[in-house]
């Protein structure tokens, strides 16, 4: 089928299936899925400038669907999301500026590529180790108490440090079960997430979701839902900027979203059946997949 805006021929069924897969991942893990959709759209023949913008507006639609489901399930901390939006937007601008500075020095692909590989690999290995330990601990806790599966966090030293930061104003996050936390801790974490979003592209949920769990101590289910809500704002902002520059093919995004809408609901509903450590363990290979994609791009020379 011909898409007149980007001028490409793409099978709409493939777009729907791609959207479905990304929707399930997004609803379940709270990520945008750009590490998968970007390379896939590119391989379907779409020019890279359209890939980035189209992917962003599709992420907005998918995140609306998934976030509504997570809201029904009580997985969104609105106060946390509101504070995070500010840090994300500023961080995103800084990331874009850093890219522009690197472009002028002529080392952009190598620096961004190596940064992405290191960050993704560290997040992946740490996440796998921590969630595996948490699962072992969770099993012994459940068998001791005979109760339901708790959201155990093995490595909580950083979360305690961030929650104890004595900088005013300090707020309480009732939905997340955190009695007091400095606004600046939240802004710092969201700023880092935003920076990677601007620097590496996409929604950077693969950084922000684990950062919310390990650095802020947010329960995994709430981190997934809140991240999705936050992605609506941050990806929406990016999508509008790209659309103004003529980088969005809304027809491709709408077709992809028909698959993503149902996938996002499925993913969100499935989170009820898995404990926090299981979700984190299943999430661990995703950043590694991103690292492989970037490494492949560096080796073969296919850069954004």
């Amino acid at each position, binding site marked *: *089928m011909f*898409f*007149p*805006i980007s001028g490409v021929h793409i099978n*709409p069924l493939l777009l*729907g299936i791609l959207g479905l897969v990304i929707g399930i991942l997004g609803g379940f893990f709270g990520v945008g899925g750009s590490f998968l959709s970007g390379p896939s759209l590119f391989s379907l023949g779409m020019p890279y400038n359209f890939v980035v913008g189209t992917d962003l*507006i*599709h992420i*907005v*639609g*998918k995140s*609306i*669907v998934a976030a*509504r*489901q997570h809201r029904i399930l009580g997985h969104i901390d609105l106060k946390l999301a509101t504070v995070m939006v500010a840090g994300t937007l500023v961080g995103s601008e800084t990331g874009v500026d850093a890219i522009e500075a690197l472009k002028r020095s002529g080392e952009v692909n190598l620096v961004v590529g190596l940064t992405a590989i290191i960050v993704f690999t560290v997040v992946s290995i740490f996440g796998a180790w921590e969630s595996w330990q948490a699962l072992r601990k969770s099993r012994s806790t459940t068998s001791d108490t005979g109760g339901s599966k708790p959201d155990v966090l093995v490595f909580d030293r950083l979360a305690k440090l961030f929650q104890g930061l004595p900088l005013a104003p300090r707020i309480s996050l009732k939905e997340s079960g955190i009695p007091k936390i400095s606004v600046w801790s939240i802004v710092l974490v969201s700023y880092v997430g935003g920076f990677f979003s601007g620097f590496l592209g996409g929604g950077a949920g693969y950084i922000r979701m684990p950062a919310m769990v390990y650095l802020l101590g947010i329960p995994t289910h709430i981190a997934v839902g809140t991240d999705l809500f936050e992605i609506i704002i941050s990806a*929406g902002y990016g*999508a*509008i900027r790209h*659309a*103004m520059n*003529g980088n*969005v093919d*809304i*027809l491709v*995004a*709408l*077709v992809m*979203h*028909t*698959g993503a*809408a*149902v996938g996002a*609901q*499925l993913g969100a*509903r499935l989170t*009820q*059946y898995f404990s926090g450590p299981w979700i984190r363990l299943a999430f661990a290979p995703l950043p590694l997949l991103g690292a492989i994609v970037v490494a492949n791009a560096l080796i073969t020379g296919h850069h954004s």
Partner: protein
Amino acid sequence: MKEPIQKVLRYIAIELVVYAILAIAYFCLVLQFLGTWLAELFHEQRIYYVVASVLLMTGQAIGLERLVTGLSHIIRSGKK
């Protein structure tokens, strides 16, 4: 209360089939009626194109979410 996972997966499979038929019909209509108009807006009036894109995506997201939720209720109540 959570339903057994096998039951949920069975409902999901039925929902997917019904949804896929409706979704294919929908995007054929969208491409047929909006394709040319959106392409013209993209080339001639970028601001309106941006506004139309955001409204279309938000509208579709809310509409499809309600459709999937509605389908889920209909299929579940029909099975009980």
